[in-house]
């Protein structure tokens, strides 16, 4: 199942590459992220869709002050054996922002993320082999004069 999903997205990636080569697609429509990264993104996106609600904290602002710098914190330090923490912004071209594979580090991460527009944002935590998610909406508004 996962393999098929991966293959599918990898193929989609190469189709896009061909399209650019043929001049069918403007480069603007294509995210800079590599095919390998997009594959992880698709995998995580699929995992998020079927994941149950997580019992960890996900802190992100309800309204982003500046879409270019949205601070987010995932704190799953209360969970045992956290092996991965990922953050997905649904409306971004490639939803996956970043994926952290823990091989000894504790289950908590803070970072700052870019968001193009208002979107559901999901934090995905894999602990003890089980994946769970917390989703919330982050509004991105267009600024006026900067206060």
């Amino acid at each position, binding site marked *: 199942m996962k393999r098929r999903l991966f293959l599918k997205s990898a193929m989609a990636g190469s189709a896009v590459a061909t399209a650019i080569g043929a001049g069918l697609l403007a480069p603007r429509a294509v*995210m*800079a992220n590599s095919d390998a*990264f997009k594959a992880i993104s698709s995998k995580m996106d699929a995992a998020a869709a079927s994941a149950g609600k997580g019992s960890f904290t996900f802190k992100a602002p309800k309204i982003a002050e500046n879409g*270019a710098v949205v601070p987010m914190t995932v704190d799953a330090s209360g969970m045992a054996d956290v092996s991965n923490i990922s953050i997905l912004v649904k409306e971004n071209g490639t939803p996956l922002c970043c994926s952290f*594979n823990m091989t*000894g*580090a504790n289950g*908590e991460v803070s970072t*700052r993320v870019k968001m193009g527009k208002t979107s559901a944002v999901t934090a995905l935590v894999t602990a003890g082999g089980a994946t769970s998610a917390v989703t919330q909406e982050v509004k991105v508004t267009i600024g006026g004069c900067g206060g």
Partner: protein
Amino acid sequence: MSIKLKPRARNGNIDIKLLIKHPMETGLRKSKGKLVPANHITDMTVAVNGTTVMKADIGSAVSKDPYFKFSTPGNKGDEVTVSYNDNKGKSGSASKKA
């Protein structure tokens, strides 16, 4: 590109704050009508005393001058090392004792 690394030991854990100076261009932004080529970090590794404790896949949606905060089991004097690669083949690393 420089890395600002701040490890701090506390109660058997090391809190690690780090900031990598990097433009994190998505390849979608226009400047003076032209697209700015993609230039972003693709992966990052954090090690304590030479043992990898975290490996991250980083996309172009991480903000300019990426900032991360983690924690890992460890003690004062442990050496924390961070290294990264970007899509242009450049890499960087920094080490500091907690």
